[in-house]
């Protein structure tokens, strides 16, 4: 899969539609609610300027908010993770740094890196989202559990996307 701008735009639109019209309508035990639209942020190229990353994060979150009527809750969470993404990437950087012309996908990096990367971003995103939804700390344990289970499911789904649309590293 190449790294052209059209692909990112198409992914941007499809993920919002998938999130709003499919995933949000599936209730997993009333507790689990995966958010897979952050896949767009995860897959943005390494070279994306930080300010653009922050802005795009805000944009996708705000669009999801417009569709779901939860103005600015998703936007707050996605702005947060897109701001943090460069630091999370730095945290899990391989010894020889990220290669030029590589992308943050399973095509270039192995599964354990992908899981660590996507799980941290999902966890931060879901935490921010669920706390903003609750807006107080009374059900701490419940929200924490919801965050953990939901981010695991989100990572599972996003890994499936990777396996479908990106050739994994070991087959290369």
């Amino acid at each position, binding site marked *: 899969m190449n790294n052209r701008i059209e692909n990112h735009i198409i992914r941007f639109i499809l993920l919002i539609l998938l999130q709003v019209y499919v995933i949000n309508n599936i209730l997993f035990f009333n507790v689990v609610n995966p958010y897979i639209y952050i896949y767009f942020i995860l897959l943005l190229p390494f070279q994306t300027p*930080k*300010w653009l990353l*922050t*802005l795009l994060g*805000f944009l996708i*979150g705000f669009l999801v908010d417009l569709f779901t009527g*939860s*103005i*600015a*809750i998703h*936007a*707050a969470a996605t*702005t*947060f993770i897109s*701001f943090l993404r460069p630091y999370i990437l730095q945290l899990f950087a391989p010894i020889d740094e990220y290669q030029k012309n590589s992308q943050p996908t399973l095509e270039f990096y192995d599964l354990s890196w992908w899981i660590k990367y996507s799980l941290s971003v999902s966890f931060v995103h879901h935490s921010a989202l669920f706390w*903003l939804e609750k*807006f*107080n700390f009374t059900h701490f344990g419940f929200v924490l559990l919801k965050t953990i289970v939901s981010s695991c499911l989100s990572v599972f789904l996003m890994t499936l996307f990777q396996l479908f649309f990106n050739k994994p590293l070991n087959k290369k």
Partner: protein
Amino acid sequence: MRALLRFFIRQHNIILFLSLEFLCILLTIRYNDYQHNISFNFFKEFTGSIHQLVFSVTKYIGTVEENVKLAEENAKLRTIINQYTINDTVRIKKDNINDFIPAKVVYANINTANNYLVIDKGSKDSILPDMGVISPNGVVGIVKDVSENFATVLPIINVNAHVSARIKTNDYFGTTIWDGKNSTQINLADIPYHVKLKIGDTVITSGFSTIFPEGIEIGTISSFDYNEGNDFYNIVVKLFTDFRKIKYVYIVRNKHSLEFKTLEQRLKNEQ
């Protein structure tokens, strides 16, 4: 200016991030009823607790003044009450004989045999020696010496202080004596042993002098006994006044005190 500009350029991402987050939170609170209510209540609580804090500090300002005012008002009310005494269900208005002057105890020495108190009223406030001193709980003592602004008080727990006292239930009277040991109790002497006594009987002032008005409470009988061959009881009276905590007192000024004394003096001269 240039440094500021450079700062903005260098930190553009953080500034962008923070302003977007700020915008998001504002929108969240503005457009979601649930979050709106919670934050509204939070800010109400927050400002409310600040109001409370400010009040809890400022309410003590002026407490001293308030206390002085209340003490003066109490003294006035006591003067009024003293005009009325209940005597066998008939209410008699007496002459306004006694004034009560409020005072504060500025020094209290109560751990020796020669205990004394110092109060903050003196000859300037027309305090004279031999005036009675009472507290809201009961009898305190007698003014001993007066200077311009202060007066010393011999409390009833001084070995040299004696107050004429009476048992409220049966009207037998005696004199208080302090043995110099326990500052919470005194002895009541001169009660003949044929009198029926009960533990818990109240002891009051007799009113046989101009020092104290009649009926000011002293304490309750906590124990009594008598030795063979002695005509009088040994009565221990537990005091109402706690001398370890004494703070505000009233000085009793009897308007007829001088007249009474001259008459008494004349009698003594004749004898």
